[in-house]
């Protein structure tokens, strides 16, 4: 039997409290999940800020080491990767997409340089022509082309285009897993749907598994296969996305669902805001 693509096994990550404080804060507190090889899916992690979802993503990317527990990618423990070679092999397979494309790209650098550098370092291509081809292929899979992007600076592209370039860059090394941390929250409303559709398309067409991190339950419902709901570092509910969101069991999941503002206009303005306000104040951790 093949090893799972990704196994997150009861990971904990604690941070030291503030200066002079002895308290330790567990940003992630015993979370487990696993993605199977050969079954591409969109696995969504939702939760409010401070729930540990970004820390979990950084651990999966190998940027932060867990304080306890283990993360295995294709059966190999991430933090046993000592050599540069092994590390590079892992980075080829697991690629990040960040929240704000305007911050992910250096404003003084032409965006095609990122694509070429990735093709050289991650995909190990040598000749200028093959590098350009790889970049063009990746851009085409996100609905752009090298001709549109070549020589452009980040400010010359819209947020949606730039986020597509960021996704194209991640695809150059033909990864098995994308870790997308709030990839649409900085994108304009009219462009958001197309980025979300792109993620779905990548799963279906290219067989890439995607860990999609968000606080937006409506897009989570739209694209996810499975979902994990986090609260204060712990996984409170997990399972099939539609089943969980249609019928949440944990009180926190219910609260999250109740907080989603429906885009349907209520009969009297503001009517929906008032209902459920009392229940919220009791449950909120710090507001």
């Amino acid at each position, binding site marked *: 039997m093949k090893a799972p693509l990704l196994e997150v096994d009861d990971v904990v990550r604690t941070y030291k409290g503030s200066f002079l404080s002895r308290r330790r804060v567990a940003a992630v507190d015993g979370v487990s999940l696993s993605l199977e090889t050969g079954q591409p899916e969109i696995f969504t992690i939702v939760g*409010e800020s401070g729930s540990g979802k970004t820390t979990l993503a950084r651990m999966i990317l190998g940027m932060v080491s867990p304080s306890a527990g283990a993360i295995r990618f294709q059966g190999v423990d991430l933090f046993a990767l000592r050599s540069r070679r092994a590390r590079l092999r892992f980075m080829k397979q697991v690629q990040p997409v960040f929240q704000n494309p305007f911050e992910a790209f250096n404003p003084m650098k032409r965006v095609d340089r990122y694509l070429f550098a990735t093709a050289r370092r991650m995909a190990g291509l040598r000749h200028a022509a093959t590098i350009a081809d790889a970049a063009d292929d990746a851009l085409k899979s996100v609905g752009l082309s090298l001709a549109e992007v070549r020589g452009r600076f980040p400010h010359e592209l819209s947020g949606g285009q730039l986020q597509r370039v960021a996704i194209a860059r991640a695809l150059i090394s033909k990864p098995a897993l994308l870790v997308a941390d709030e990839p649409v929250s900085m994108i304009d409303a009219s462009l958001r749907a197309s980025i979300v559709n792109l993620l779905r398309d990548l799963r279906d067409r290219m067989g890439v598994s995607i860990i999609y991190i968000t606080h937006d339950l409506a897009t989570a419902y739209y694209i996810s296969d499975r979902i994990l709901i986090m609260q204060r570092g712990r996984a409170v509910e997990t399972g099939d996305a539609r089943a969980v969101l249609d019928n949440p069991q944990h009180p926190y999941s219910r609260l999250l669902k109740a907080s989603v*503002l429906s885009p349907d206009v*209520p009969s009297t303005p503001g009517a929906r805001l008032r209902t459920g306000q009392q229940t919220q104040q009791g449950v909120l951790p710090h507001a």
Partner: protein
Amino acid sequence: MSGQLPGPVLAVSGLQAYYRTAAFGVKREVRAVDNVSFAIEANEIYGLAGESSSGKTTLIKTIANAIQPPLQVLGGSVMLDLSGRRLDIHAIDARELAAIRWKHLSYIMQGSMNVLNPVRRVRHSFVDFAFRHIGTPMPQFLQLVRDHLQRLHLTPDVLEAYPHQLSGGMRQRVTIALATVCRPELIIADEPTTALDVVVQKSVLAMIHEIQRELRSSILFVTHDMSVHANLSDRLGIMYAGRLVEEGRTADVFRQPRHPYTAHLIASLPRMGDAAAKQGLAGAPPNLADPPPGCRFHPRCPRASDICRQQTPIMQWHTPSHRAACFHPVGEPAA
């Protein structure tokens, strides 16, 4: 506050605000707000929607007369009606402007940390912003602030806290209390809940709604989040590329959008319990330094025809309260 004369609190007409730069002999003109007209009635939440670079923030700056080069107002007027006193905010001097700001026209901003002084207790922020407008001795002033906080279901203890000791949602509630303590006629809210979590967002919106209904102030509520508008705004204006393209009662705009851009925005909203495929909109918002001729939406519009490429559509009233600037409005056969 009761017995106000009917009439708009804010009347913007034909407003044009451009950014004009001339560097190294290259002149650039960015038409951020181009011929925008609308009015906000008393006791109304007017929502303004639009994506980034649609001119929302420039419009707010121009309304508040916070104009700094290279931004210039080239035409149009912004009239305020402050309990019967009508004035043009661009025609008054700095002293008068300072007297009006915060007392009659206040703001709720996106980043509460930009409003509250990070190294002083919250109490000092209230004193800095509101003390001179209220005009009572300090003990009475602080009592008034405490009463106001209690009305907003906040504990007066927050006055003695430093901003960093409060959570993001709590801080934003404090800035709302700060913006409403003088009972202004008009409050400008610029993306006040965008930086907050979903759970906190709803209760902050509920708070804004409650205090608005109580003070009967008018709010210009700016956000790109259509779900927020659906739940909060009485009327809604949609901006695209520096122009107002549609305006109407929120329910009407959502139920029967007339402008194709609005129709797309509403149709592409993800909903819980609905996994049907949503279409994205092709293309990208135009560069306002070089906007397309005619209707600025025509390069992305599925209904565009020749006239859209040549002429600028003017606002047409579809019902007495619903208008849109489109030659081929949704709901009528396309040319």
